[in-house]
C-alpha cells in the first residue's frame, strides 16, 4: 500500500527533505540486493531512466532510479530549489513541484484563499498524475507548520482538496505548532484558522511542538558532551542525526529537529512497509485511535533517542524503552500523558522484541495510567521485525490523550489576546473570501474541541459505572 506525502511550505519541505533522505537510508540498510521490493514501493517509484528523462515505471527487478511519491509545494522557491540542487535532486522531478516566488507573508488567508484558488487546478492535476502511479493508494501525509502562511493556509487547502478528490484515502497530518515565543506575531491566527480545517478534514493529526524537539536535541547534546557516553554512541542511531544519509556535512540549524519528525514518520509507516509478527497498517491506526471523529489528535513519542555501540542489550534496557515512551521528555509536544486521560494508546515496536516483552510492559505500566472507563484495556499493538538504522529495537507510542488540551488552550489564549484588540486583522480581512465569520467560526471550532476534552477529563477518576447488559428471557 502506498503513501503519498505532501510537503507544504518552508517547514514542511525542510522536514520532507530529511524524511526522504532518511527513508532512502533506511531502505538501503535493509535492501542489500538492490531489488525494487514491496517495501520500497510504499514511498518510491522505480523509473527506467536509461532512455533519458522519464521512462516507464519498473515494478520488479533491480532498482534503476528511485523517485519519491511526493508533492513539494511552496510559495517561495528557496527551500525547494535547495532540495533540487542537493543530493536528493534525482529523487524528484519537476512535475512534482509547485512553487511561486513571493511567499505568503505569514498570512493564512493568502495561502488558503489566494494561492489555493490560483493553484487548485495545478495541484489536482499533479495529484492525479502522482496517484496514477500508485496501484493502491492508502494514505496521504501532509507535512507543514501551523504558524506561517503557506504551510498553514495552502496546506489546509490541499487537505480539503484531498478529501474532495480522494475521499477514501486516509489523511494524516503532521503539524508543527508554534510556540509562545514564535517570532511570527500572527502565528496564533494562522494556527487557529488552520485548526478548524484539521478538525473537519483530517483523519489523524500528529501535533509537534518545536520546544519539545529542541529539548530532545539538547538532551542528546548534553549526553554526548558530558563524556559519559562519548564515542560509544552510534552516530547513525541518534534520532536527530543525518549520519549515513545522502546529506552533506553542512548541517542546517533545524536539521536535527527535523530528523526527529522524519523518524516519527518512518516509524509510523514501518509496519506497513516491513514484515513482522503483528502488522500495523496506517488504516489500523486511524481505526483504533479515533473513537470519535473530531478527537483525532495523537501525541507521539519516540524511544530510544540513541543507541550505544554495545550489541548485547539486556532485557532491563528494553523495559526502560517502554517506560521512556510514557515520560514527559520523550513526547513531541509539551504534554504529560501519564497524568491525563487516555482514550486510546498504540505501541508500535520495531526490532527484536516479542509479544511477551510487549505484554510484560503493558502489565507493568498500565496501573499508573488513566484510561477512559469504556476503554480500560485500550491498547493497539504492532510488532515489526525490522529495526530502525543503528538500533536493535525501537518504540513509537501514539496516544489519544486529553493532555493535548493545554496546547490548544494556550493557542486559544494567544489568539484571543490578538483578536480582542483586532491586531493585524485587516491583513486577513482584506483578502477576497475572508470575513470576520471565518475567525469567529474558527475560534468556535477550537473552543468546542477543548470542551470535548474537558468533558472527558471530568470523567477521570470518577466511579466506573458498567452499563447494564441486555436481559434474555430464559
Amino acid at each position, binding site marked *: *500500500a502506498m503513501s503519498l506525502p505532501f510537503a507544504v511550505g518552508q517547514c514542511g519541505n525542510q522536514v520532507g527533505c530529511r524524511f526522504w533522505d532518511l527513508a532512502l537510508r533506511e531502505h538501503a540498510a535493509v535492501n542489500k540486493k538492490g531489488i525494487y521490493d*514491496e517495501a520500497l514501493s510504499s514511498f518510491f517509484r522505480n523509473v527506467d531512466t536509461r532512455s533519458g528523462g522519464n521512462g516507464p515505471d519498473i515494478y520488479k527487478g533491480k532498482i534503476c532510479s528511485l523517485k519519491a511519491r511526493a508533492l513539494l509545494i511552496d510559495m517561495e522557491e528557496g527551500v525547494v530549489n535547495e532540495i533540487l540542487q542537493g543530493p536528493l535532486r534525482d529523487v524528484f522531478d519537476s512535475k512534482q513541484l509547485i512553487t511561486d516566488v513571493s511567499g505568503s507573508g505569514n498570512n493564512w488567508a493568502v495561502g488558503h484563499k489566494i494561492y489555493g484558488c490560483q493553484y487548485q487546478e495545478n495541484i489536482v492535476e499533479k495529484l492525479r498524475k502522482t496517484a496514477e502511479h500508485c*496501484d*493502491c493508494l*492508502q494514505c496521504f501525509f501532509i507535512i507543514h507548520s501551523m504558524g506561517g502562511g503557506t504551510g498553514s493556509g495552502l496546506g489546509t487547502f490541499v487537505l480539503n482538496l484531498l478529501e474532495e478528490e480522494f475521499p477514501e484515502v486516509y489523511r494524516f497530518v503532521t503539524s508543527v505548532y508554534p510556540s509562545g515565543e514564535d517570532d511570527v506575531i500572527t502565528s496564533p491566527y494562522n494556527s487557529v484558522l488552520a485548526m478548524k480545517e484539521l478538525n473537519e478534514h483530517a483523519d489523524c493529526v500528529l501535533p509537534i511542538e518545536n520546544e519539545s524537539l529542541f529539548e530532545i536535541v539538547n538532551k542528546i547534546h548534553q549526553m554526548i558532551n558530558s563524556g559519559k557516553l562519548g564515542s560509544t554512541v552510534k552516530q547513525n542511531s541518534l534520532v536527530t542525526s543525518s549520519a549515513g544519509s545522502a546529506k552533506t556535512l553542512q548541517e542546517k540549524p533545524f536539521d536535527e529537529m527535523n530528523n526527529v519528525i522524519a523518524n516519527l514518520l518512518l516509524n509510523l509507516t514501518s509496519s506497513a512497509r516491513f*514484515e513482522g*509478527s*503483528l*502488522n500495523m*497498517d496506517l*488504516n*489500523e491506526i*486511524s*481505526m*483504533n*485511535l*479515533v*473513537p*470519535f*471523529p473530531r478527537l483525532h489528535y495523537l501525541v507521539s513519542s519516540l524511544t530510544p533517542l540513541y543507541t550505544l555501540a554495545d550489541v548485547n542489550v539486556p*532485557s532491563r534496557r528494553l523495559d526502560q524503552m517502554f517506560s521512556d515512551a510514557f515520560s514527559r521528555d520523550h513526547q513531541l509536544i509539551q504534554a504529560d500523558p501519564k497524568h491525563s486521560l487516555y*482514550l*486510546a494508546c498504540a505501541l508500535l515496536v520495531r526490532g527484536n522484541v*516479542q*509479544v*511477551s*516483552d510487549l*505484554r510484560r510492559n*503493558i*502489565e507493568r505500566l*498500565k496501573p499508573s495510567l488513566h484510561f477512559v*472507563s*469504556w*476503554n*480500560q*484495556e*485500550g*491498547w*493497539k*499493538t504492532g*510488532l515489526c521485525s525490522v529495526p530502525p538504522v543503528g538500533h536493535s529495537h525501537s518504540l513509537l507510542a501514539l496516544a489519544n490523550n486529553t493532555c493535548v488540551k493545554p496546547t490548544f488552550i494556550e493557542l486559544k489564549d494567544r489568539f484571543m489576546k490578538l483578536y480582542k484588540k483586532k491586531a493585524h486583522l485587516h491583513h486577513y480581512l482584506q483578502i477576497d473570501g475572508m470575513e470576520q465569520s471565518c475567525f469567529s467560526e474558527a475560534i468556535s471550532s477550537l473552543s468546542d474541541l477543548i470542551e470535548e476534552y474537558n468533558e472527558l477529563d471530568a470523567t477521570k477518576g470518577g466511579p466506573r459505572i*458498567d*452499563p447494564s*447488559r*441486555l*436481559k*434474555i428471557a*430464559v
Partner: protein
Amino acid sequence: MSIVTVQLGQCGNQIGHEVFSALCSDIRGTHGLCSKKENESYQDSCKERFFCEEESGVPIARAVLVDMEPKVISQTLSMAASSGHWKYNSHSHFCQKQGSGNNWANGYSVHGPRHKEAIMNLVQKEAEKCDRLGGFFTIMSMAGGTGSGLGAFVTQCLRDAFPTSFILNHVIWPYGTGEVIVQNYNSVLTLSHLYQSSDALLVHENDVIHKICAQLMNIKQISFRDVNQVIAHQLGSVFQPTYTAGEGSGYSRNPLGDLMETLVPHPEFKLLGLRNIPQMPENSLPYSTFSWPGLIKHLRQMLIANAKMEEGIDWQVRPPHPGSSIPSTNKPLHFNTSIANLVILRGKDVHGVDLGSFQDPSLYTPWLNPQDAFSAWKTPRAFNKYEKSASLVSNSQFLLKPLDSIVGKAWSMFASKAYLHQYTKFGIQEEDFLDCFTTLEQVISSYTNL
C-alpha cells in the same frame, strides 16, 4: 476424506503454516512407537486428509490462503516452500494491498462481496481435488479486520455453496489486555455471525497459550511463533488420524463429521474448548514418563475445574453428588458443566486405558444420555514425539467466562458509542450491533443454565 483449510488474515495464515508444518513433521518422524504397518496407515490417512501429492513428491497442503495485504501470505508461502518437506499450491492464495484496517465492517461488507467470486473459485478448486470432501476448517482471529470480518463472510459463503459439508471454525481469542482496541466489537460481530453458518467453533485463547509457553514450555522471550506452534501441536493432536470405532475399521474417514456428531448435539451450543497434556519443551521429552491413569486424572480435573493447563489445577472443585437429581442452579459455582466431551489418546498402551471417570453423569447436563455425551478416540501411534498424549475437546462452560467478559467490555464501549462511526461508514449500523449482542447474550444464557 479430505479437509480443505482456509487460512484468513495474518493470524490465520501464520497459524495455518505452523499446523501444516506440525502435521508434516509428525508423519515424517520416526517416533511413532508402533508397527511399520500402523505407521504407514497413519501417514496415508494424514496425507489424504491434509495434503495432495504432486509429481515431485512434495506434499501440497490442501489450503486456500486469504489476506487483504500481501506481506504475510508472501512470507507464509516462502517459508513452507523452503522447508523442502511440504508446500502450498502456488496459485491457491488471494490477497489485496490495503488490508482491512482492523475494521470488521470493512472485511465483511466491503472486501467480502467484492472478492467473493475470486475466493470461492479457489475454494472450489481445492474442493474438487478431494476424492471425498470431508469439510472445511477455517483459521482466523476475531480481533482484527480480515480474519474476523472477511472470515465471517467467507464462512457464510461456504455454507451457501456447500450446504451439506461440515464447517469447523478455528477462532483465536486475543489477549485480554488488548492487541486491538476495537477487538471486543470485532469479536462480538464475528462470533454472532459465525454462530449462524458454522457447525462448531474451536477456540484458542492467546492468554492461555501464552501461559503454557511461559510456565510449561519455559520459553523466556515468547514470540507469536512460539504461541502458534503450541496451538499447532494442540490442533494436530485432534486432527491426526485416530480410530473412532474398534481398530478393525481402520482410521476414521470422516474426522470433522465425527467431531460434530460427538460434540455438537444442539445448535445452540457450538463453542468447543481444547486441552492437551502433557506439554513440555522438546528437550525434556526423553526424560519424562507419564502414566495413563495420571494423565486421565489430571485431564478430568482440568475439565471439572476449568483449568487451562496441567499446572495450578484446583483439586478442591468437585462435581455435585452423583445420583441425586440436582437442579443446575445448585451446582457448585466453579464447577464446569459439560454437554459433551471427546478424549483423544495417542501413543503407548492406549488400549487398556480406563476412561470411566469421564462417563460420570454428574459431569454432564442432565438432558443428554451420558453414554452419548462422551466419546473416546485412540491410536497407538505416538504424536509429535510425545510417548503419550491426551487431548480433550469439550463442549462445556469452558468459554463462558471469557465470552461474558468480551461481551461485557464490548457493551460498555457500545454504550458510550465510541468507534461506532468507523463501522457505520462501512454499513454496519447500531441495530446490527444490537442483534449481535442479543445473539451472544442468548448463548451466554444457554451455557450458564446448563
